[in-house]
């Protein structure tokens, strides 16, 4: 630590890498925080968590008992145990008693990305409500055709204010806050839409994952979806850097035009094998785009080839989506208990083997990644697992919830993780803040009832 600071001082270390190093250090020491506690007022499973994007200070949580709450995660409302425990009670709670409150479970609660003056909740009672934070009054609502599973707003958007909503219905609707009407109805999914996610690189691109196992990319300026991810369409690992890629591309194009979009020749063989092993349908699905894609992509765009249109990303429903910070990769979780990393540009499955054990299948889960997208936090049943995004190895396992975990949110500012689960708790996982000296000092003050130290009487 001190060495790094010295290096930074002398200019050996660049500011970016310095901060990255500290961040990753802190990330590796994340554990259940004993000193920060969020007092959840919810009486049902916590389904959605989000810290606001502007200040990084207010945590919004939506729960199955149709309540939404907002907490200040920076400043505790009260302290317990002689200042040892900081308790964060909710600043605002809206539940069924509220005159415009939701009737059924809230599946999604998100902040308006521009400021903390508004937040949006989607509920199983078919409504999306938009709330004024300061007056806790509903300012607008949208009646959806079915249960709302997930809502999303683009954090990049400068030219639109659209709420993308995944519902029971096969169509994805975009609700325009400015006009109070549906601006788009995107159809393509064959079943309800569990997750929606805006691209982090383009304000026009929306990614949706449905119960039919398909992940679709939409450009909201055009009609129809322009990309469907196919699980058997894969490349090994990350794309090589641009220069290398150009070189290999030359080779591959010279070799065969039909294999054009794939990065290298090497992964081809195993991929082929796998495709054959998976059965005739998959192999057919994988072959056809190979043949047509590179030449016909532009032409195909508005209406994809029907066979390509049927491609699936997971065998079950897609229950979680997360676009990495740079917008190049997409992480998806499916009810087949798989986690997949997709290269968005090539729309290939990168075949990273995440050591997932089991994911819960019935509900949408909320994934979280660190700022540099090195780690991904995945709710796996009662625990939250941290995977290395590129290798798929488990880095840490957070066990603290007693029921299934539904959602997690990683606060970029504090390197803290918030998780909410069916046991109605919102847990804070933070880098170990208290070092031994501080604790000793604190305990010397004699505030503790029973000191936490060895006590061998015999």
């Amino acid at each position, binding site marked *: 630590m001190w060495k790094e600071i010295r290096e930074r001082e002398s200019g050996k270390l660049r500011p970016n890498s310095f901060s990255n190093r500290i961040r990753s250090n802190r990330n590796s020491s994340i554990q259940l925080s004993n000193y920060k506690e969020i007092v959840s007022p919810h009486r049902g499973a916590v389904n959605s968590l989000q810290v606001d994007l502007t200040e990084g200070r207010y945590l919004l949580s939506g729960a199955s008992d149709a309540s939404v709450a907002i907490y200040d995660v920076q400043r505790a409302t009260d302290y317990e145990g002689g200042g040892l425990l900081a308790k964060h009670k909710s600043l605002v709670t809206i539940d069924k008693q509220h005159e415009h409150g939701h009737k059924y479970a809230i599946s999604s609660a998100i902040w308006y990305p521009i400021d903390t003056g508004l937040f949006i909740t989607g509920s199983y009672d078919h409504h999306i409500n938009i709330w004024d934070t300061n007056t806790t009054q509903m300012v607008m609502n949208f009646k959806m055709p079915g249960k709302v599973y997930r809502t999303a707003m683009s954090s990049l958007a400068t030219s639109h204010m659209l709420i993308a909503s995944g519902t029971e219905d096969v169509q994805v609707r975009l609700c325009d806050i400015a006009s109070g009407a549906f601006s788009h109805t995107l159809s393509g999914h064959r079943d309800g839409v569990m997750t929606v996610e805006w691209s982090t690189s383009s304000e026009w691109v929306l990614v949706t994952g449905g119960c039919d196992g398909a992940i679709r990319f939409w450009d909201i300026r055009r009609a129809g979806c322009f990309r469907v991810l196919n699980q058997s369409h894969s490349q090994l690992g990350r794309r090589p850097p641009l220069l290398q890629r150009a070189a290999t591309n030359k080779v591959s194009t010279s070799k065969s035009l039909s294999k054009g979009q794939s990065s290298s020749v090497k992964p081809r063989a195993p991929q082929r094998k796998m495709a054959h092993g998976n059965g005739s349908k998959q192999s057919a699905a994988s072959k056809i785009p190979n043949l047509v894609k590179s030449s016909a992509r532009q032409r195909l765009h508005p209406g994809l080839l029907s066979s390509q249109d049927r491609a699936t990303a997971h065998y079950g429903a897609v229950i979680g989506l997360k676009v990495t910070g740079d917008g190049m990769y997409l992480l998806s979780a499916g009810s087949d208990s798989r986690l997949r990393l997709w290269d968005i540009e090539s729309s290939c499955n990168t075949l990273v083997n995440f050591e997932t054990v089991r994911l819960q299948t019935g509900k949408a889960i909320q994934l979280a990644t660190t700022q540099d997208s090195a780690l991904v936090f995945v709710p796996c049943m009662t625990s939250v697992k941290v995977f290395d995004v590129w290798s798929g190895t488990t880095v840490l396992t957070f066990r603290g919830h007693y029921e299934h975990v539904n959602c997690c949110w990683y606060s970029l500012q504090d390197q803290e993780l918030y998780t909410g689960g069916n046991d109605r708790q919102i847990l804070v996982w933070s880098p170990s803040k208290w070092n031994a000296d501080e604790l000793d000092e604190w305990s010397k003050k004699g505030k503790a009832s029973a000191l936490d130290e*060895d006590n*061998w009487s*015999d």
Partner: protein
Amino acid sequence: MMMMEEERERVVVVGLIEKATNSTAAEVDPRLLKAIKSVVRHSDSELRLAAQTLMNLMKRDHSQVRYLALLIIDELFMRSKLFRTLVVENLDQLLTLSVGFRRNLPLPAPPSVASVLRSKAVELLEKWNVSYGLYYRQLRLGFDHLKNTLRFQFPNLQANAVRIQQERREREMRTREILVNKFETLKETFSSIKDELQSTIDEIGECLEIVIASDEPMPLGLLDDEEMEEFRCSELRRIRLDTLKEGNKVQETSDNKVVFDALRELYRLLVTKHLVSVQEWVSVLTRVEVADNRCRDSMLKELIDIRNNLKSVKKKCEESGCSLPDTRNNEEEDIWEEGTIESFENRSSVLNYQSDDSSIASTSVKVKNKPFENRNKEADVKEKLDCEDSGTDSDPLRSKLLAEAPLMKWGSFLDSWGSKRDYLANQRGLELEGHWGRIDYDAVIPAEKIAELNVQATLYKEDPVEIQPCHAPLSKGGLCQRRDLRVCPFHGPIVPRDDEGKPINQTSLTEELTPELETNLVDHLAKQAVKNVRDRDKEKAKKREHDKQALKRAKLAKVREHNDAVLRDAALASTSRSSAIGEDVETAGGERSSARSKKQTLASMLKKKVTSKDRLAQRLLNTRARDATERQLTQGEDAKYREAFPNQW
């Protein structure tokens, strides 16, 4: 070398823990526990290993093992910080395994231990949460989850203790308040109370003066000395002394009756009211806590003085002979009762009885000096014994007769017991005047007739025989307490058994029993003789038969032996284990009883006990019984139907 050492130690910890958990006891063996603690204390790696081992043991499919492991975990948890951090990381797992709150992971058998395990785990979690919850979020979470989500009933030790403390404090407060109030009232009324007491004392004193003045004292000691020699017998001397003392007392006469009454009244007042109240005040004063100590002390002193004064007055009263009338009554009753009993017991020793009576009477009156009284009592007891002895000794014939005499029930025939005279017929209360015919007033019922009428009827009463319990040893420990006359349905014929339930010397007993049972010895002998003869005949016939059969049997045995040999060879060839089977069976047959009493093992705890319900179910729910019932029922229905509609078939 170090590695070796470490390895060895590792084995030690694991071995110790496994040994400690491999028991059926409800507690961990304290010596083993201590050993575990001392081993684990010295190195962190040991502790880690212990934590690992204990978690593995918690996964065992046996509640007893889990329970003991949990107890060890608790011991270490309360002592080592490292252990706490290790356990807390997997707290949800630990709770799942010990509380069994997950539907898909219930606690394993045996259920009785499982429930103990659950309650213990819940209790321990609360304890841990109270002492270390502040440092471990996981503990708080687990506690919160069990308490608020799953609604487990926690023993709530801390809150209970606080509540009890609070209640006690409140009670103390209340008593203090009451005491202070009493003290205040006492302070206010102290002078009046004192006056009242004083006036009573004065009155008593005056009464006593009057009484004593009216009666001149008698020189007691002198007389005693003079006449001492005359009463050789200690008993007589004592009687004498008593009478003298009695004489010394002021006798109640018609003259001083009024005074005595007043005195008695005052005495009662003194004893029942004043003394008690003064005692109460004293206790109040000693217990009360007030700021003004001086006042309290002075009051206390005064009260004690008053109490002493009262006591002396009371004593004086008692000496003067007007002790509490009601107590005297009681004692008189006692005397009467005792007297009657004595009169029944030894009517003959009239003299003794009288002396006895008097001595008791003398005890009723409080005597001046206590030691004497004590001696008096002792003498009294001795005397009683004496008189009983003398009663039996003096009349040996009587005692002999008494021993012989039959015990009769009471009845009207006792009226004419032993009399042989005739009775007049019309003295029996018959109304004869109104009847026609000759009346013979002198009609006599002869003695024989009377005797005939008075023949005593006795109902045959079976002697209450205490039926001995079976006392056969039970598999669960203890002895069979069933009382059957001859045969216990579970343990066969009832034979006398020792404390452990082993039959005592059965053969000798049967020998003892038979002569008892067969009352008529001659009869028995005759029967025996006949039997012997017949047996001999039978035996002869049998022998003939036997010879014939023996040949056959020998042949069969040969065949069987051959078959056995073949079979065994085949079995031996098939498995290595089966060879031991036969031996096992043999040993099991021989040692069944010892196996029964063998120590309980973990495996035996898992075995489901066969209850009487199970046995009944087996009997009643088997197919044959069920079919029979069904058939009966259908038959019954058929019959009903046929009766109801006789014209249809």
